[in-house]
């Protein structure tokens, strides 16, 4: 390992860390981006069943290009496969699983998450931007546990863990836990609390890069 890789977690390591917290037998919905990587890091001895909003339980990995089925896609419009025991259903049933509280865990990316669990991941609210919400507002309100995987700061170094979201909310007070490149952070009644620091990362560094009060581990 080189020096850069020895501090903090990379995308795969963030996803692998999140996978550790998902119990065996969970019904799981993974958002687009880093959350999709969670499926590569299912801990030994556990099985997760993946839900995709466009109507399937038992979603499997992407197929080889020559084995693509044009009628078998995920919510990110990518070609996928179906595992043994999969089921297909229409959109109202799919969102009944979400809104009816039947999905155990949803792992999402985000633009901002606040110390009270508010999440903003659908729109910057910029004038002229075309708003697009998809199923994000349904997921954050209906799934039992909402986990977020995100870089701790934006590309320009602004904190993504903030006191109040400046972007329009996807949902208020819904996030339980956040996995960043620097730490695992819980949303508690007292605000953010570090659960675990990534290798080579100090609490002081996390505190400096967080846009809200954050409590140390313990």
């Amino acid at each position, binding site marked *: 390992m080189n020096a850069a890789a020895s501090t903090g977690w990379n995308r795969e390591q963030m996803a692998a860390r999140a996978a550790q917290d998902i119990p065996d037998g969970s019904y799981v919905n993974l958002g687009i981006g880093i959350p999709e990587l969670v499926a590569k890091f299912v801990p030994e001895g556990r099985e997760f069943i993946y839900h*995709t*909003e*466009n*109507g*399937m339980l038992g979603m499997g990995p992407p197929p080889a290009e020559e084995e693509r*089925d*044009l*009628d*078998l*896609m*995920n*919510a990110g*419009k990518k070609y996928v496969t*179906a595992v043994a025991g999969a089921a*297909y*259903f*229409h*959109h*109202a049933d*799919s*969102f009944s699983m*979400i*809104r009816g509280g039947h999905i155990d865990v949803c792992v999402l990316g985000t633009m901002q998450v606040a110390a009270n669990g*508010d999440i903003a991941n659908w729109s910057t*609210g910029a004038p*002229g931007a*075309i*708003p*697009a*919400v*998809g*199923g*994000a*507002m*349904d997921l954050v*309100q*209906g799934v039992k546990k909402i986990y977020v995987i995100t870089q701790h700061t934006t590309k320009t170094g602004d904190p993504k863990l903030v006191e109040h979201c400046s972007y*329009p*909310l*996807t*949902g*208020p*007070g819904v996030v339980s836990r956040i996995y960043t490149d620097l730490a695992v952070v819980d949303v508690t009644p007292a605000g953010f609390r570090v659960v675990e620091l990534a290798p080579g990362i100090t609490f002081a560094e996390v505190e400096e890069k967080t846009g809200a009060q954050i409590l140390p581990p313990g």
Partner: protein
Amino acid sequence: MINKQVSSVASAVADIPDGATVMVGGFGASGSPIELIHALIDHGAKDLTVINNNTGNGEVGLAALIGNRQVRKMICSFPRSSQSKVFPELYKEGLIELELVPQGTLAERIRAAGAGIPAFFTPTTVGTVLAEGKETRDFDGRPYVMEPWLKADFALIKCETADPVGNLTYNKTARNFNPLMCMAATTTIVQTRKLVKSGDIDPEHVITPGIFVNRVVEVSDPVHEDTLIAEGRRYP
């Protein structure tokens, strides 16, 4: 004998008038009734309100209908994607309206219309800008937003197998919004890859019962949006 079969996609859509509200099945490319949409382009009805999860891709199918300036308003959850350019350009110029509806709310509003339920309450959008101006009510101490049913004059549907009374089956994730839209439109028009005789679909396997279907047209080798886009095609 009931026989809902019609002879062509052109005759299937021929009575869709200007100003109609039209549901179009599919989620992205999957389950999109491309041949019916292209027939609607040929037919030329305009000033349409179209309900779909997205706004089409490339310059075929739904995107081509929008690009042909036949659509006044889109009702959808996700109006842009990596391959959508027609809608974004018209929207930025103020030439098309958008009603943005969260995906689960969109599905449930359509289902509610088909089930005769004029409105329902959902936690989706509570505390967000999309709930502004909507009635909210507490149930068991938690706030919910009221959402109205969503009906249409016509639905354009793609399925895998149909029989002459309109019983339908679908293929994998091409099912998506199609069964809901069948229920919510006054006139439901279906293109099917296979038209079989009555009795050839096991009643246990019927996904959409024929009562929700008005017209069936066989399109035995349907084109797929992703294939057309990969080939650089446009319509007309």
